[in-house]
Each structure stands twice: as structure tokens, then as C-alpha cells.
């Protein structure tokens, strides 16, 4: 947004040569293990690490400075760091003058966050704030990495923008080993966005509201395209409850397990007149469906995924679909055809041809060119070698725009009734919900182990390994407890891998005003012993 495009600015294989890594709201050694190992390789080569996380992650352990902030206080923290940078004259004046706008507003906003105030809000000592600012701002190059610890807040968009501010303030963007890098959670979340599986944009982030864009697609597809953006997922669910949406077609996802406040989700889906679910397993969502379509796994089809560094890579069919299952693309084509608009693609390679013709970033991509190494978009034409890092010399939107960001509090902070702060995330041995179907992985990590600080455990009389009840305003579950100082006092941390302890019955469905991302990272819960 600030730069004019949303993707990892740099490449994964730049990481081992990094000079400074600022890792915020991200636990790469568990959630993105290979990126985590590259970061550790960087550390072995002498890179400095600033880790920002309330939870003691592996990167926090190896960090030069670990800022253990209170959950949800990221904006105050970054404002404070920028305050320190300006106070010490560590900003990149040339970069600010030549490549950005809006600096004065930023300076004004940041002035409201002197280190002492920030320390009080975040719980991070002043000297650590100064050290972190010094390491990041005075480095020859520095990269920021963030994940869902930043985005899964009601002010997630603001969190992201303020990180962009920080990078521009110090000129740490648009060159090798310098940038702002979201580590995308799912294998093809980048591609799904690139492909326009979003209510407001067509493939390549081309807005449906734009007449020229629509005209291009209407010409290609020979049908009119609606100019109004559609519904985002949380709104779809609300619309289902109010009968404005009557039917849903769900491919691949399992919102009944993965969305916040799942009891609410379940109610919405049950209200529908007709629900089709296409999946490789009978997911919790599929159980609610009127028709279930068996899909092929990734091993059973050809296609491409786009990873977090914008690398489009081949997925190659290794085996025939199991039983009567069919590849998703074949099912969609069949349905379109039966609905009177024949999708006559012989193969995914054909589909890519159409994608390339309509999506500027993918214009130069063919299956052949992708080969064994893939290509990083933008690939504007058939000769273009792909793009290692973005914003070199110029941002997508021209000049980088500083955004003054105000500090905000989470939607549902802990209170007297629900005194513990629940935060959720991923564990190394599992990926979302699908890896539970791996016998090997599941036998290795068969159950949830919710993390609780020893102080709280003692107060509540809970022992390591004990099963407890966890409740929020929205629901309750049972889980085993692991007593550890990896989490702060007053905090409970859970993964969302286990349907036996489905953390999302607890989470809050309040969402970011722009992206509608749920606030998975903060809600109030209480823990009680099982009777």
C-alpha cells in the first residue's frame, strides 16, 4: 500500500547474506522452517538480529536484542523506534528527500512517542529500544520480516504500514538485503491473491471498479463484469445469516476450523440453502455440505504455486487421482460447462496462457519457461528473467508514502472475567489442519499443548501436562497445558492445528477494517481446572 504493492520485496536466498534482520510477529523456525534456517545461517555469518515477539521463539533466543513487547503494542513500539532514530539523526535523509513523501506528518506523529512512554506501553526497557533502533538504523542494509503476528490484528493494515515507514525512514528498501518482507502463511496465498480470488480485484490486482480493466476482461471473456466489489469472507457469512447469500461453493478451505469464532461460522453455513464443498478430506466444513466433491491432492495434478518471494513454480502430477477424485481445475471446468459457459482448457498450461495474457505481472510466464527453477514476478514479457527484489530505484506507486499511524488497542483485551490473553500460531510439526492426516507427523505431535507461564500456572494450581478447560465469550474447549516461560505471564498460546482442541472456537471475529483479517492474536480467555 505504502509502496504500492503487497508482496515480499526481497528473495529468500538473500537472507543468509543479510547484515541485519528485524523479525517481528513471526516465528520462522517453526512456521517457515526453511526461511528460519536461512536466518540462522545469516546469524552464523555474523548478521545481527532484532526479534520482536511476546513469545520466546527460537529467533528470540539467538537475537542480539529481543524486544518482548506486550501483545498488540507493535504500533507504539515502532513509533518509539522511529522517534529514537530521528532523535539520533540515524534517518536516511537522502532517501527521504528523493524517494518519499509525507515525511513531515510522520515526524509529527512520531514525536508523540518518546522512549519512556513507549516503554510504559510496550513493557520493553528503554535501553533495549535504543539498541534495537541503533542496530536497525545504522546497518549497511537491513531487512524486516513479519508474519501473522503483525497482520492478525484489527489494526493489522496499520501495523504493516508502519513497518514500511520504518524501512523508508532508514532507506532500507529497494536494494539487495533491504526491504519489508511478509512471510506468507499458505503455500499459494500469494498466487490466490495474484489470480484475483478477491472480491475487489481481477487477476494482477486490477480493480473491478476500473472501466478499462473491466473492458479488457469483458473482451477476453465475452461477458459483462460487475463493477461493484463483492463480499469478503466475513461479510459472506453475515450475508448468509441474513439470507442475502443463499448458496456457497467452497474449494479447499475449512472455515469451520480455521476462521475466528467458528461457532458463528458454523451457524452461518448451516443457514445456507445450498452448500458445495470441494476437498480432499471430509473436512468439518464439508460435513455441513449438500454436495461434497472429491478433489485431487497436489500430487495428482499439474499447475503452479506462487511462493512468498513471488516465485511462480511448477506443481507436477506424480500419480493419478485417488479413487474417483478429480483435479480441482477439471471440476471447475466441468461445472462452468454444465452452467452454460464452456471452459475448454486441455491442461493447466492452457490456463496459464490465458493468465499471462490478462495479468501484467505474469505476462512472460509459460510452463515451459518455469521449468525446474520457476520465475519471480513481475515477468513482463517472454524474455524477462524475473525480478529478485522490488522497488529498485522507484516504488510501484512512484514515491513511497509515509503514513502517520496512531496507536490503537485490541478489540478484546483481557479483563476481569477473561483475564488471560489468548494468542494463536503454528507449530513446527504441523501445517494448518492438513498435516494431521499425515500418520507420521500426527504420531509425533498428536495433541495440543497450550503454553502457560509458570507464574499463572502456579496461581491457577495447574501442573505441566494437565488437561484444562479454556473458555472465551464465544466458546470453550479442552486442552493439555505446557507450563513454560516461552510465554509472558498473563498469556496463553495455542496452535490451531487440532480439531480436538479447536482454538478458533475461542478467537474473536473482529477484523481489520481494510483486509477483514480476523484478530486471531488477541482475545480474552479464562483457564480452569477440569473437575
Amino acid at each position, binding site marked *: 500500500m505504502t509502496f504500492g504493492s503487497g508482496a515480499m520485496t526481497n528473495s529468500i536466498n538473500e537472507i543468509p547474506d543479510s547484515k541485519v534482520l528485524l523479525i517481528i510477529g513471526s516465528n520462522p523456525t517453526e512456521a*517457515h*522452517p*526453511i526461511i528460519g534456517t536461512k536466518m540462522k*545461517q545469516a546469524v*552464523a555469518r555474523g548478521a545481527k538480529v532484532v526479534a520482536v515477539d511476546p513469545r520466546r521463539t527460537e529467533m528470540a533466543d539467538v537475537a542480539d536484542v529481543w524486544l518482548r513487547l506486550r501483545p498488540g503494542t507493535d504500533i507504539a513500539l515502532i513509533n518509539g523506534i522511529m522517534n529514537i532514530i530521528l532523535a539520533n539523526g540515524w534517518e536516511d535523509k537522502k532517501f527521504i528527500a528523493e524517494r518519499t513523501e509525507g515525511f513531515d506528518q510522520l515526524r509529527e506523529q512520531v514525536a508523540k512517542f518518546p522512549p519512556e512512554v513507549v516503554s510504559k506501553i510496550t513493557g520493553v526497557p528503554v535501553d533495549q529500544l535504543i539498541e534495537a533502533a541503533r542496530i536497525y538504523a545504522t546497518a549497511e542494509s537491513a531487512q524486516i520480516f513479519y508474519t501473522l503476528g503483525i497482520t492478525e490484528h484489527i489494526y493489522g493494515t496499520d501495523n504493516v504500514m508502519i513497518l514500511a515507514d520504518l524501512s523508508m525512514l532508514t532507506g532500507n528498501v529497494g536494494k539487495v538485503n533491504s526491504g519489508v518482507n511478509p*512471510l506468507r502463511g*499458505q*503455500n499459494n496465498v500469494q*498466487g*490466490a491473491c495474484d*489470480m484475483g*480470488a478477491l472480491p475487489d480485484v481481477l*487477476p494482477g490486482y486490477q480493480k473491478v471498479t476500473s472501466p478499462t480493466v473491466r473492458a479488457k*476482461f469483458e473482451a477476453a471473456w465475452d461477458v459483462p*463484469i*460487475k463493477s461493484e466489489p463483492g463480499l469478503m*469472507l466475513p461479510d*459472506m457469512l453475515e*450475508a448468509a445469516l441474513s439470507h442475502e*447469500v443463499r448458496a456457497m*461453493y467452497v*474449494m*479447499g*478451505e475449512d472455515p469451520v476450523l*480455521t*476462521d475466528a469464532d467458528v461457532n458463528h461460522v458454523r451457524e452461518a453455513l448451516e443457514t445456507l440453502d445450498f452448500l458445495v464443498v470441494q476437498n480432499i*478430506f*471430509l473436512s468439518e466444513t464439508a460435513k455441513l455440505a449438500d*454436495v*461434497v466433491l472429491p478433489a485431487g*491432492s497436489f*500430487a*495428482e495434478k499439474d*499447475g503452479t504455486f506462487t*511462493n*512468498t518471494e513471488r516465485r511462480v513454480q511448477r*506443481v507436477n502430477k506424480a*500419480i493419478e487421482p485417488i*479413487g*474417483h477424485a*478429480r483435479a480441482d481445475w477439471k471440476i471447475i*471446468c466441468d461445472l*462452468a460447462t454444465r*452452467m452454460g*459457459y464452456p*471452459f475448454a482448457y486441455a491442461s493447466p498450461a492452457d490456463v496459464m496462457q*490465458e*493468465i499471462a495474457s490478462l495479468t501484467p505481472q505474469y505476462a512472460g510466464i509459460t510452463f515451459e519457461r518455469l521449468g*525446474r527453477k520457476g520465475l519471480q514476478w513481475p515477468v513482463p514479457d517472454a524474455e524477462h528473467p524475473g525480478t529478485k527484489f522490488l522497488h529498485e530505484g522507484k516504488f510501484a506507486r512512484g514515491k513511497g508514502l509515509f503514513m502517520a499511524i496512531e496507536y490503537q488497542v485490541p478489540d478484546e483485551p483481557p479483563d476481569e472475567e477473561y483475564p488471560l490473553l489468548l494468542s494463536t500460531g503454528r507449530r*513446527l*510439526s*504441523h*501445517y494448518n489442519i*492438513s*498435516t494431521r492426516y*499425515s*500418520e507420521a*507427523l500426527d504420531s509425533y505431535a498428536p495433541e495440543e499443548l497450550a503454553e502457560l507461564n509458570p507464574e499463572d500456572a502456579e496461581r491457577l494450581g495447574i501442573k505441566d501436562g494437565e488437561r484444562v478447560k479454556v473458555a472465551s465469550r464465544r466458546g470453550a474447549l479442552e486442552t493439555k497445558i505446557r507450563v513454560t516461560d516461552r510465554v509472558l505471564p498473563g498469556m496463553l498460546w495455542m496452535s*490451531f492445528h487440532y480439531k480436538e482442541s479447536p482454538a478458533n472456537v475461542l478467537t474473536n471475529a473482529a477484523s481489520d477494517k481494510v483486509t477483514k483479517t480476523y484478530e*486471531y492474536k488477541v482475545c480474552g480467555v479464562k483457564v480452569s481446572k477440569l473437575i
Partner: protein
Amino acid sequence: MEWITLSIDGRTVTVPKGTTVLEACRMNNIPIPTLCHDPELSNYGSCRMCIVEIEGMRNLPPSCVTQATQGMVVRTQTSKVRNARTTILELLVANHPLDCMTCQKMGDCALAEYAYEYRVTGEVFKGQRRELPLDDSNPFILRDPNKCILCGKCVRACEEIQGRSVLDFSFRGFNAQVGPAFNLPYSESECVFCGSCVSVCPVGALTEKKMVGQGRPWEVEKVQTTCPFCGTGCNFDLNVKDGKVIGVTSNPEAPVNGKALCVKGRFGMDLIHNSERLTTPLIKKDGEFVEATWDEAMDLVAQKLGEVKQEHGADAIAVLSSARCTNEENFLMQKLARAVIGTNNIDHCART
């Protein structure tokens, strides 16, 4: 770049300065046997298989750690060199189980390959052999320390690729072993089961447990593909035999990850053949799912969606695409919503 010229087996070759003798040989297709060398790992120089003769140097220097220099005269196949290699192989085989016919590594074992080439039988030095217990403590990796040739690749992979240093040498002399600290089984160590150690093991000391007995290297077709889990985009080879994925092996060509993988990517692919996989369309009748044909199911879906569109308008239909599916499928799904159904109600769980 500065270039130097040297002679290898009478051939004059030119290589960049800073090249090792081994690299110089490999660049020029001169075969040199190695057990402990791996271009992704630091040079270790321990197996001593790559020894050569170099004029002016005493002893037989290992080519993997000897820098090529201007005018150097190298001989890689003299009888002195070959005899020394044969002796080293005899020593390794003398302390290695000869159960090759049931070994998972058969057909892909560097020791067996060189033993064959150098006609080594293990008959020369008959003496004590190790009798160490197997480490069968975890679902992923099977460790047979008796097959270990102590090349140290796993130790370096764990330290240099994975940054964990779970593995190291212990004990001395003939009793030297590789394993986790205090000789703990893998399951009780700090191991995170990335399997990098397995991917570099040249013999059958470390194997993918789930692949044992599932297929021989020459029976297996390897299909490079992209991991379906997190957003890193690692590539690996699916190992396919008789239409079944029997496991995953690293593909050194993988652009993002090289040989490295995590526990999920390397060991989680048995989910493909999980018995709970959906194998036929299901239609719910009276609250129960009933198996259906594709025609029945697809006709029903097309009909129902058509009805809703007819009665309530296209915007009464919402489509949820998937960050787990391919680009092509997401493209088709949004095209289905926009061009076929006629709504912009298309989204996916982008945010988890």
C-alpha cells in the same frame, strides 16, 4: 577472474584461481571418488578417498581440500593412488554390515558403488565389527550406526544448513560414533526432524523410515514438485512407485531450499494416501451422505446454483477459492464466479 593452468593425468586444464584440485577434476569430467564431500557443505577432508598424487608434495594429498596452483602436476589414477583408495575402502567395508540385499540404500549407496569399482570385498581385514543398537525411536528417521562411515556430512548439514548442531562425533578411535549429545536417541534430542542428515547420508546409516521396504531406487520415479504447505515454496522430488507416492527426497536443484526441507515437507506426504481421502462425490440425502456419480453430483450443483441465481440473483451466490490450490485453479474459480455465475463474491482464506 584470474585463471591458472595445471596438468591432470597428462591433460592440461585451465581453471579459475581458488579452485580445489577436486573441483578442477570434476569441471573436466575426471572422476574422483568422494564420500565426505558435498558442494553445499564445508570441506572436511575426512574420508580420504579423493587422494591424488601431486608432484612435489609429500604423502597423498586429498584433492577436496588442496588448492589447484599454477603448473601443478596431478595424477589421479596411479597404482599408488588406486591401491591407497582400495585399502581405505577395504577398511570401511571391513567395519560395515554386508546386508546389502535388504538395505534400503542398495542401488544408491556410494560405498557399494566404489567397492564395486575397486573390487573391494572386505576380505582383507577381518576383525572386530561394531555392534551398536539401532535408533528406531521416532516415526521419521531410522538410524543404523553400524552402517555409518563417519563421513560427517550429517554433522555438517545439521550445523551448516539447519543451524541446530544436534549431531556430532563422540568417543574415539574405532569406537567413534556420530549421534546426538550423550548418545540419546533422536526422539530425546533437540532434533526437529528436518531430515537434512538423511538427505546427505551416502550410505544406509540414515534412512527415511516410511520408505523402508517400499521400493528400490531403480524402481522409483522421481517427480519434482512444489511443497503444498507453507508459503516458502520449497521444491522436492515425490518418489513414485506403482502409482503410489512412497516418500520424498531432496532435490539439490530446488531453487529456494536446495537439499533442505522441514519435517512437514519431507515426512508429511503420507497424507496423500490417507485412508480418509474422499474418493467419490457425496450427496446429502435426509441428513446422510450418499455416494454419487460425478454426473449426478455435478448436475445437481449446476442445477442448484442456477436456481439460486434465477431466484435471488447472482450475488446470492458466494464462492470461496483456496490458497491451497494452484494459480490456474484460482484463476478458473474467480472466472467461474465473475464470468459464469456473474458475481464478484469471490474470496479465499488469505489471512490464515
